[in-house]
């Protein structure tokens, strides 16, 4: 890289936080550069210091934080020598930042125009008419339709994806040289993620802006990055070009991140035991040593150096690991790298022979049958609160699930997935039939229904808020057994709690602790133990891994599969993550605006989608590919329409690439596509199923 092209040059950057538990060092001697038009992706689990790095660059650390060493140069200017007032001229103009959660990152009581105008006035001296014209063109450039009108709207009037576009427009308003994007698409649906990433790529190409992308998602890295830096416990452990990194990640931690990704055809995913160590300590050896499979004697006692080595393809990479210490590093790299299976094996979907537990077909009656399930919420208006319309959250869903099998329910947020789960559990009044083991649940009276609750349990998305913080683990797990009178005596219950904790991979001594003493993965294990306590046959998993890191997600998915094999459990797995579906599910139902548009075995639906929506979902998933990003892709346009006011005809037609006149008039009936080779049929609601 030419020295004049370097936009950001960080060297030996160190950040300290003076916390109640002592001094932590979330950013420890970081060095990297980003060139004009280039993207550096910082990758790593939560708690590795990625976001702190971004805040350090902006000099926006929390009050307890301090930049203790190193230098940051932006376009040649030393940022650490600037006064706070001078630094304010840099923020928003030299470098701008966008954040993870667009719904909280915009000021809720100021219009989009007011928020854009601040930047335009402050950094470019634009006001009045000129500012409005510029703001309008900024909104248009990030792909917001009808920009002139939407300028005067408030953030809550925008959808999640649109809000993140507003954030991008605001960041670009000062024409920055560097854009820092901190998990910019993590809170968004995969279809919306594809749109936002596309916007970022286009704008970078137009403006030649440098970008620092912080993410935990390897797929996003693969789509966006030119350079990849892997962070672990405050340090960079690997830094390489995108091609070098994706063809052969070198550091054992990087390799583990790849191996933990859910894949089809893999019985059990690789996991990283343990968790990121607290950063308040002085490390004596390699920080990853305790979790590393390839740990050697001196890893614990000797700090590995940040060293440069040549990769197999002749490019250079930086790494911090004792494995690569010896001479003849190139050879050694290649040897190590072979252990990792090649990424992005394109035909993985079509592989028919993959092992999933308990695929034996019992020709018995299904565990769960849902027929024509409807959940409608009335919209009330006026003085007398008359019903003026209905939100059709769930509008005629039929499902069937057998014991020992997993049915995945996928779709964008707002499509009604979670409501289906709640309605099946009878936690939400609904029309239609729900049969568990042949018993019609909706016709039962309160007391009988209570007894049947033992047959079905739920595991929720966020283990941080779904466990009562005031109940000990033991109490949380035993509560269900007690109230449903599954285990009658206190002693037997305690014994059973210990057994359950062991089954989910926790030690029985943990029974007396409170939820806050556990990590996210451990809490989700507790939540699973709680669900298992009453011996359910059906577990509804509502996005059980989407709040977790990839390595922890792998642990939970493995655990769920083991438990399914042991106990012949039926899972209704609600998720938006198609990779997880491919890994764990036998059947899949794709939901769009309260209705199921395609349903069938996973191997068929995901390899040969017949509904354009399913295909669009699959295409929106970022691919791990060795080749460089291919520029434009056909991402699904627009947002999910409101279920209060669904489009006429096929709900999907406004976003559908193959929609025709008929699609605008009538809703397509269920088409059953027979397939000779498959025992189970694929069903689709489309007039023109893809071939």
């Amino acid at each position: 890289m030419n020295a004049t092209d370097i936009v950001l040059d960080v060297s030996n950057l160190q950040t300290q936080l003076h916390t109640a538990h002592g001094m932590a060092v979330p950013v420890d001697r970081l060095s990297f550069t980003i060139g004009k038009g280039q993207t550096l992706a910082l990758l790593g689990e939560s708690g590795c210091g990625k976001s702190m790095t971004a805040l350090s660059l902006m000099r926006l650390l929390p009050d307890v934080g301090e930049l203790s060493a190193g230098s940051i140069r932006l376009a040649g200017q030393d940022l650490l020598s600037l006064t706070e007032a001078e630094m304010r001229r840099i923020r928003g103009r030299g470098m701008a930042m966008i954040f993870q959660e667009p719904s909280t990152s915009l000021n809720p009581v100021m219009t989009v125009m007011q928020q854009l105008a601040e930047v335009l006035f402050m950094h470019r001296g634009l006001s009045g008419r000129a500012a409005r014209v510029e703001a309008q063109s900024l909104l248009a450039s990030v792909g917001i339709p009808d920009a002139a009108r939407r300028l005067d709207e408030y953030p809550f009037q925008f959808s999640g994806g649109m809000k993140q576009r507003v954030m991008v427009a605001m960041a670009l308003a000062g024409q920055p040289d560097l854009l820092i994007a901190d998990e910019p698409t993590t809170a968004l649906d995969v279809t919306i993620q594809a749109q936002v990433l596309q916007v970022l790529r286009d704008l970078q190409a137009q403006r030649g802006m440098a970008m620092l992308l912080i993410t935990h998602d390897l797929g996003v890295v693969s789509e966006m990055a030119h350079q990849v830096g892997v962070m672990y416990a405050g340090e960079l452990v690997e830094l390489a070009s995108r091609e070098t990194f994706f063809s052969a990640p070198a550091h054992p931690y990087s390799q583990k991140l790849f191996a933990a990704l859910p894949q089809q055809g893999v019985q059990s995913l690789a996991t990283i035991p343990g968790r990121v160590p607290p950063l308040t300590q002085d490390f004596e050896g390699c920080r990853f040593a305790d979790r590393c499979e390839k740990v050697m004697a001196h890893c614990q006692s000797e700090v590995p150096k940040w060293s440069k080595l040549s990769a197999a393809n002749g490019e250079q990479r930086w790494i911090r690991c004792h494995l690569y210490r010896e001479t003849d590093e190139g050879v050694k790299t290649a040897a190590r790298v072979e252990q990792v299976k090649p990424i992005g094996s394109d035909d993985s979907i079509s592989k028919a022979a993959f092992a999933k537990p308990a695929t034996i077909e019992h020709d018995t009656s299904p565990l769960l049958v849902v027929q024509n399930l409807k959940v409608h919420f009335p919209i009330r208006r006026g003085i007398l609160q008359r019903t003026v319309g209905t939100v059709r959250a769930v509008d005629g869903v039929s499902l069937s699930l057998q014991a020992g099998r997993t049915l995945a329910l996928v779709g964008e947020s707002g499509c009604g997935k979670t409501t289906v789960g709640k309605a099946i559990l009878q936690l939400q009044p609904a029309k239609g039939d729900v049969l568990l083991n042949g018993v019609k649940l909706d016709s039962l009276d309160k007391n009988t229904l209570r007894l049947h609750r033992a047959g079905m349990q739920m595991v929720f998305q966020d283990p941080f808020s779904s466990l009562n913080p005031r109940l000990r683990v033991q109490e949380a797990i035993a509560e269900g057994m007690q109230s449903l009178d599954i285990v009658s005596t206190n002693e037997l219950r305690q014994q059973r709690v210990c057994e359950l904790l062991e089954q989910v991979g926790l030690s029985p001594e943990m029974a007396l602790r409170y939820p806050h003493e556990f990590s996210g993965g451990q809490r989700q294990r507790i939540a699973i133990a709680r669900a298992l306590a009453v011996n359910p046959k059906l577990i509804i998993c509502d996005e059980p891994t989407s709040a977790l890191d990839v390595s922890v997600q792998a642990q939970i998915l493995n655990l769920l599969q083991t438990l399914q094999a042991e106990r012949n459990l039926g899972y209704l797995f609600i998720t938006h993550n198609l990779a997880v579906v491919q890994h764990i599910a036998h059947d899949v139902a794709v939901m769009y605006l309260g209705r199921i548009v395609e349903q069938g075995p996973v191997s068929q639906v995901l390899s040969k989608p017949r509904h354009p929506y399913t295909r669009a979902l699959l295409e929106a998933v970022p691919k791990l590919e060795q080749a460089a990003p291919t520029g434009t892709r056909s991402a699904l346009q627009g947002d999910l329409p409101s279920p209060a006011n669904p489009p006429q005809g096929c709900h999907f037609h406004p976003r559908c690439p193959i929609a025709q006149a008929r699609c605008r008039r009538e809703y397509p009936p269920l088409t059953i596509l027979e397939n000779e080779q498959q025992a189970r049929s694929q069903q689709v609601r489309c007039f023109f199923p893809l071939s």
Partner: protein
Amino acid sequence: MIAYIVRRLLYAIPILLGVNLITFALFFLVNSPDDMARMQLGVKRVTPEAIQQWKAERGYDKPLVWNEAASGFHKMSETIFFDKSLRMFALDFGRSDDGRDIGLEIRSRMVPSLAIAVPTFFLSLFVTVSFALLLVFFRATVLDTAGVVLCVAAMSISGLFYIIGGQYVVSKVWNLVPISGYASGLDATRFLILPVIISMLAGLGSSARWYRAIFLEEINRDYVRTARAKGLSELRVLFRHVLKNALIPILTGVVVVIPTLFMGSLLIESFFGIPGLGSYTIDAIGSQDFAVVRAMVFIGSVLYILGLLLTDISYTLVDPRVRLQ
């Protein structure tokens, strides 16, 4: 919006009826007209005839809720409940025990009450919000800690201390303003300055601490980080971003008291000899004049309900998320 206000006003009707019934029960069932007469007449003069006469003079000799002796509609209207309770809905409060028209009295005493309450309200709001913002600007420094300690100390001291201490120092020792009294017109100013400042100071501690907590909660939100990342100065972040959002909970807490400003302040008016509604109520309680107390309780409830309604309306005005949905 109009539908919303109409609906809220309709909700207020059963609440007011309830308030009316409860005040009636408190004043006429717990404490019967005979008890009132005995208390007013004093032990020495109590004779059955004197009680009867006292009651007849004030209209307490009718049956409580149902008059068997009357006919038709008068079975209901010729009762204490109708005369003394239901008539209050028409703002007819009758006469006090010493024979004066309560309605007239209230109208004339409202002016001095408002002359104290309105300046106090705005001055307090301005000073406490500024003080809280100042503490937040210097958050996590010695100044902030000192300010919070000051607040806690200030709110721990009784309101009486501020009044008596203030009167002693400012009026007696320094001789700057009169200790108490009232005059009409612009002349009133010199009588009002001290009570207004003292009321403000007495409430400063608790409000400033509460506002500071609201500001601190807002300042840790994501949108504030966004505002700083734009390169805005800390003052601009505080005034344009934080203040605008924090005003929503502050306003809703403050608007509710606006209607009750008419009621005046019991303590301040009594101590400073202001002839307002607060001292009127205190005097009525002192002389056991239940007709006046009953009227003031009822007006207080009506104003409070009005305050809650205003709160909800102001909420929709300041928060676009409520207004536009």
